[in-house]
Each structure stands twice: as structure tokens, then as C-alpha cells.
């Protein structure tokens, strides 16, 4: 019985010590909570479409901050209206109030996505990013393809939004399909079942 008691105490010690050691994983950095990040990605709360951002800007959503994470040189070309330029390397030093909605974008979206993870690791959870970046802005907002089989009200809505930002819609032939990006788990494991 002494062995069993020893095992029990050992287990209890290892269990109770667990919360005090931080997240166990080699790939961990300070404060990187993979679980909540994964959840946000899963639920889609990590990003917004360019069209959604456009509506927020037009409706003057309170607390909205549009952040362009490109370098200052790139910032002098095409820009989303009301955007501030905070290059990635300065992002860590910026302050964001909890009630602000921070929308990150970059040229094609990749850097904005990385910036999102960075901000997440610093505890900024009120940020989102535009997955397709400026390319999406051009395609969805400035010159959107009006869906042929959409309702007239919907087409009018998209066209009005485009005009607001000085763009002009295109009349298209095909319905754009939703490209649902499959979550890459990065696991090459062949699931063998239990």
C-alpha cells in the first residue's frame, strides 16, 4: 500500500504543479494561447471580409481603426480610406483600447494575418484582419462582380457601396463560388481510428 500511496501523492504533486508552468509546447512564445487562437480561426472571428470593412467605414462604426501594416513606401500607393499606417515592426509598440475594433490589412492579406497572430500573442483580442487584403478591397468593393443570380436589392446594395468609395461595379457572367479555405492542420498523420 505504501507504493500506491506514493503514486497517489506523486500524481497529485504533478497535477497541482501543472497550472503554474505556463503552456507546454516547444513552439510556445510568451503569452501565445494557441487554444483561443485556434478557436478564433475555427469560428471565423479572426477576420472580416473587405466588404464588411467597407460597410463599417461607410457607417462610421465607433471605435473603428483601420491599420495598414505595409511599409511607409507602399502606403503611398493605393490605400483603404481612413487607414493608419503602422508597419509590422512597430505594431508591437502600439496601444489599442479594448473598445476599439482594429482591422488589419496588407497587400494580399498574408502579413495582416501574421500581424493578427502577433497582436493576439500580446493579448490584443479585439483585432481582426482582411484575408485578401487590398486585392480583396479592389475586387469586392471598388470593382465588385455583381452576381447574375442575385436579387435586385442585393445588387443595388453592392453597387451603392462601390460608388461610395469611388469605384464602379462590373456586370459578370458567372457566380463567384465561395472558396472555403480548408483549415490546414499541418498533420500528415493518417487517422487510423481507435
Amino acid at each position, binding site marked *: 500500500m505504501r507504493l*500506491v500511496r506514493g*503514486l*497517489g501523492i506523486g*500524481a*497529485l504533486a*504533478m*497535477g*497541482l*504543479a*501543472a*497550472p*503554474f*508552468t*505556463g*503552456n*507546454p*509546447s*516547444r*513552439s510556445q512564445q510568451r503569452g501565445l*494561447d*494557441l*487554444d*483561443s487562437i*485556434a*478557436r478564433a480561426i*475555427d469560428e471565423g472571428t479572426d477576420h472580416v471580409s473587405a466588404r464588411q470593412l467597407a460597410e463599417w467605414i461607410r457607417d462610421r462604426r465607433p471605435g473603428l481603426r483601420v491599420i495598414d501594416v505595409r511599409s511607409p513606401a507602399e502606403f503611398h500607393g493605393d490605400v483603404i480610406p481612413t487607414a493608419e499606417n503602422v508597419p509590422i515592426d512597430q505594431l508591437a509598440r502600439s496601444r489599442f483600447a479594448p473598445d476599439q475594433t482594429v482591422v488589419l490589412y496588407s497587400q494580399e492579406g498574408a502579413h495582416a494575418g501574421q500581424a493578427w497572430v502577433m497582436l493576439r500573442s500580446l493579448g490584443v483580442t479585439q483585432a481582426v484582419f482582411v484575408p485578401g487584403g487590398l486585392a480583396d478591397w479592389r475586387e469586392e468593393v471598388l470593382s465588385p462582380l455583381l452576381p447574375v443570380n442575385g436579387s435586385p436589392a442585393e445588387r443595388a446594395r453592392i453597387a451603392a457601396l462601390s460608388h461610395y468609395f469611388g469605384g464602379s461595379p462590373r456586370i459578370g457572367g458567372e457566380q463567384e463560388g465561395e472558396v472555403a479555405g480548408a483549415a490546414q492542420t499541418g*498533420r500528415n*498523420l493518417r*487517422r487510423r481510428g*481507435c
Partner: protein
Amino acid sequence: MNDLLIAGGIGVAFGWALECAGLGDPPKLAGQFYLRDFTVLKVMLSAMLTAMLGVFWGGRFGMLDPGALYVPETYLLPQLVGGLVFGLGFVLSGLCPGTSCVALASGRVEGAATMLGLFAGVLLVGLAFPVIAPFYRATPHGPLTLQRLTGLPYGVVVALVTVIAVSMLAWIAKREAAR
């Protein structure tokens, strides 16, 4: 080939351990549900605790990456119903799929009977699958873990589970000492 050698090795160790604990003996396993024999809970809880703590601390010391381990997917309804049905079968036969093999290997005909039933049950599901597929695929939640469900950090969940499991084992020990 390497894969299968590992499979065989793990299996041998698994079967050996189960037999050593006496889990190939139907009256012993069924005894758990009459609170006569607590071997099932003792072995299961100890094994789970060991593996859970091993994974956590192994990750902490950089020996393995818990994030890369495959977490079984959660399907709320099918697993709830499946568990209930499984439990009923467990108390009827006094064996589970793994221990039925242990029983057979130690010469018990009950092992063979249960294994026969297992094949039949799985075949039934396979044959009826086109009909039950919607239920089978209902309520998926992906690889949901307790920490993602509750929002608590991994370490805290490990601590809570440890405390609960050790408490259960302590209660069992006290109860047995009182006999």
C-alpha cells in the same frame, strides 16, 4: 513495416498489462458495476492519469509536442448514445473489446463469445450505415478538448482532472479499507 512492428510491440505490452491486472476475467470486470471489485476503475484512472501527466510534462520539458498529438473528434450525440449502449453491453458480457482478446488469450470461451458479438455488432452498423449515417454524423465538434470547451488553461484542466481522479481513487481505497 516499422509502423507495424511498433503496433505489435505496443499491443504485446498492452495485453500483458491488462492480463496482469486480471482484466481478462469477466466476473472481475462485472464486479465493478456491483461495487464489489474496483480493479476496472483503479486501472483505468491510474493509466489515464499517468498518460495525461506524461503528455503534459513531456511537453513542458520539450520531449514531445502535445499539440501534434491526434485528439479524437467529438460527436456529442453519437458518443453519448454509443457510450450508453456500450455500457449496457459491458455489464452483460463482463468484457470490453480489448479485454475480450485478453480473455480469449487466457483460454476463456467467454472471450470468444464476446468477440463474436463484437464482429456482429460492427457488421450491423456497417450494413445499416446508409440509414443511420445522418445520426452518425450529427453534432460534430472536431477535436474539442476540455480546455477549449471551458476556456481554462491546459495546466489548470490537468490539475482539476488529477484532483478528481486521485480523490476517486482515495475514496475507493478508504471504502476497501473499511471492509
